[in-house]
């Protein structure tokens, strides 16, 4: 596929790298020669210098040949104009990044008619996820699938976690023995049909819960591994788990014995994202403090926030942080426009004992370095949610959507079992999976089914398959007609 990316900023660079790795033909347009030279030295792509909203520049970039145009400059106007030009030139799909939320909601603009197929906004999606994390202590990342019906959650193994008591298989046996109703857990590849009454004994509830949970992938340091039945976990391992939305808090309670809600959430940075997040926390009645360096902006925030305490101060100032209440029972979220400040203030919050520290970091280059520091609980890169929205167009028709996980390599592919597909009518344990793939969840009609070994795949089922980068192509070809 030939993809034209307008804008070689952080988002454009991140996208170009990902798409190039997926062996697409990538052309990047930007006004800054230096940025382009840097990008061309690192990636196998073509670069064109000029403004992405100028038709002659787009012509030079051979717009008409492109199958997809992605406009991710900082200017909404340029992005929209580029998409409109592309639509007129016959480019089948266009994606525009929108910064101004008013543009997203306005009824005055009919984007479909203008030729913009997809609008992505980093703020909205990042605010949603951060809200989720602050609402559910222990949750580090949430990826919603199948229109909010299923959830992939990232959790971390902490001291005292029941996962430290043995292998996954041991755990399920232990629960089953205590409960004597279900012999196996969701992690193992096959198990008996389970019809556990909803009101079960405490241990039974755990076994029941474990039966509905699927361990997707795990990370130790930077190395990912598949959590099979014989896997043992260590403190600090990250786990990606498919869990039903209704089970999330029960799963987190099990995962972190003695878990309790954050006493307070401190947000550093009252920009669009910070304000959005603070308002969401207000509606959910979660106590929050907003730190904003700029006095005028702090005033603006105070105008619209009614319960949140707005402080005018710098998040790199220790006294300010203590004043704001950063301490052992506080979640700290640093989402200012200054990435270095975000990282430093998170380290400070960590020192003050905050159990959850989240930093917004846009530069993809920083992310591995920050991870190796091991101090922050979570790095939010605003491009990921955006790339997930865009992947949908890249993966082609037979795959509905694809989602990247933040930390682990691999993709979640959303596929539909069509009539006469060779998987239809077979139990999951009898399927020949390409490589190390794993079915994360199954949607049949309107209900989610836990993909245990005995579940039979039916025509019309929607599957979410987790595939390592090397296997993505094989899954794709499996679902190609």
């Amino acid at each position, binding site marked *: 596929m030939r993809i034209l990316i307008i804008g070689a900023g952080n988002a454009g660079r991140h996208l170009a790298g990902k798409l190039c790795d997926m062996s697409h*033909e*990538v*052309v990047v347009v930007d006004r800054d020669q230096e940025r382009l030279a840097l990008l061309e*030295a690192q990636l*196998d792509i*073509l670069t064109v210098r000029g403004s992405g909203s100028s038709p002659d520049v787009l012509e030079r970039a051979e717009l008409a040949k492109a199958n997809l145009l992605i406009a991710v400059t900082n200017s909404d106007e340029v992005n929209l104009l580029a998409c409109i030009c592309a639509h007129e030139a016959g480019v089948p799909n266009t994606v525009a990044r929108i910064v101004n939320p008013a543009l997203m909601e306005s009824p005055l603009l009919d984007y479909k008619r203008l030729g913009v197929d997809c609008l992505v906004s980093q703020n909205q999606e990042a605010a949603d996820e951060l809200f989720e994390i602050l609402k559910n202590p222990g949750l580090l990342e949430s990826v919603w699938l199948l229109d909010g019906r299923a959830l992939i959650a990232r959790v971390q193994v902490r001291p005292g976690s029941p996962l430290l008591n043995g292998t996954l298989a041991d755990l399920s046996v232990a629960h089953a023995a205590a409960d004597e109703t279900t012999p196996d857990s969701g992690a193992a590849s096959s198990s008996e049909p389970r019809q556990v009454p909803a009101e079960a004994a405490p241990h039974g509830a755990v076994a029941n819960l474990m039966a509905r949970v699927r361990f997707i992938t795990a990370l130790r340091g930077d190395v990912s591994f598949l959590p099979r039945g014989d896997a043992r976990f260590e403190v600090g391992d990250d786990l990606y788990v498919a869990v039903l939305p209704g089970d999330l808090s029960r799963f987190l309670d099990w995962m972190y014995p003695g878990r309790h809600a954050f006493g307070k959430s401190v947000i550093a940075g009252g920009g669009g994202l910070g304000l959005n997040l603070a308002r969401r926390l207000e509606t959910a009645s979660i106590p929050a403090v907003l730190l904003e360096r700029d006095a005028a902006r702090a005033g603006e925030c105070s105008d619209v926030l009614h319960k949140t305490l707005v402080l005018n101060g710098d998040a790199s100032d220790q006294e300010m942080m203590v004043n704001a209440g950063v301490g052992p029972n506080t979640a700290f979220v640093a989402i200012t426009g200054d990435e270095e400040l975000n990282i430093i203030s998170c380290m400070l919050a960590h020192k003050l004992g905050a159990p959850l520290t989240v930093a917004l970091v846009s530069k993809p280059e920083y992310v591995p370095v920050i991870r190796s520091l091991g101090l922050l609980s979570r790095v939010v890169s605003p491009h990921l949610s955006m790339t997930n929205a865009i992947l949908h167009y890249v993966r082609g028709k037979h795959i509905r959507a694809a989602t990247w996980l933040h930390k682990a390599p691999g993709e979640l592919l959303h596929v539909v079992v069509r009539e006469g597909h060779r998987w239809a009518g077979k139990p999951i344990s009898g399927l020949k999976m390409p490589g190390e793939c794993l079915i994360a969840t199954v949607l049949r009609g309107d209900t989610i089914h836990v993909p245990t070994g005995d579940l039979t795949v039916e025509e019309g089922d929607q599957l979410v398959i987790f595939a390592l980068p090397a296997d993505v192509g094989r899954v794709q070809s499996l679902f190609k007609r």
Partner: protein
Amino acid sequence: MNLRPVLHLISIMLAVLGLAIGLCAGIAWLYADPWQARIGMLAASGIVLATGILLFVLTRGPVDLSRRDGFGIVTFGWLAAAILGSLPFMLTGVITDPAAALFETMSGFTTTGASVLSDLEAVPRGVMFWRAMTHFFGGMGVLVLCVAILPFLGVGGMQIYRAEMPGPSKDRLTPRIATTAKLLWGVYVFLCVAEAALLRLGGMDWFDAFCHAFATMATGGFSTRTASVAAYNSAYIESVIIVFMFLAGTNFALNYRALLGRPLCYFRDPEFRFYLGAWLTATVVIILNIYRTVYPSFGQAVRAAFFQSTSIMTTTGFCTEDFDLWPGGSKVILVLLMFIGGCAGSTGGGMKNIRVLVVLKKVVREITLFMQPQAVVKVKIGREPVPQEVISHISAFFILFVLVFAGGSLVMTLFTPDLQTAVTSVIATLGNIGPGLGGVGAVQNYSAIPTGGKLFLTLFMLLGRLELYTVLIVLLPGFWKK
């Protein structure tokens, strides 16, 4: 530099060369060469192929190339190609001296076309075809060929492409470097075949037609005749060769676009306009200079001047006339043309027209600033201003080229007493032309140069083909550090 992936890619290149030598062994059988030649070619093919396969197996693993590795692959790849590629000459007994065989092979791969052989008619056909094949592989770059055919290189392919393709800016036809490499090789092979067919029509046999087509399109200059193209004494053959030499000295991205039906793109390219202008000016001045003084007939002067100026400027090095007998003015023009060479992205050598053009414009800019210190003057190529870094990069290359040439001339005076021979042998190898003046002139060859001089000039051919930096970087101690 990561040695394992570098050797891995070189091993693939050696396997390709081994197969090509095998093809030449087939030609040796076809033309019923003497048994020593047939066996020698087969043995050489076997050795090169076996070396390639052995190295391939020993260095298996993932190939992840950094920028540095690209330079390493290209420099060492070319050295390995020249060393192992000289086996067919030695094992068949055509050239017994290893230094001379290395010189001949490097001259072939770098498309210099300087030869140590004095009687080409006596060379077996198989060896002769291999000699032409070295041009063919070296012209567009044997490693760029690898980039085109190996699917797994990705960004690594770009590093190789950058290190091997001549010219300051690497024109890309498509976003993917492998696709670009494929297209360029496609154009190159297409033009080779087209020229061979046209030469066949002019009365050459297929063997000579292909050998000359390879030598032309690669801007090499190895002929199958001792007297070079003069041996055919055909105005038709000479015109065909002039046209194709000129195309070979043009940016292949332009040739590609022209073949797609946009021939006007040539004239929109500022470098091409400069190339055309320099070529026509030089030719006209030479005609005026040699008409009456050397050639009594105007037609003869035109024919000689056009062929020789094209051959020298595109750095091919075919000869129809002994230009050593021409007046001094014409000789100086020819030597100046050697410095200019072909266009960026062509198979020609020299400094490349675009660099000369930028340096000249820079000089004009400086002079303007002397008169008008407040003027804001940008160096522009066409209508595009050239970025400051590019200008300084090109100026540095220009200076380095002249310094290397001067240093080389000094060293060559150790090997040959004649100043003209020493100086022109250096530019003729550094610019990948082939014939120089005096002792290495049009009707002479390099066999008289002592062994030390031959090895020295071999290095210069490599320096010229890989445009100095690629080779010089490898000599820096920092290159070898992890």
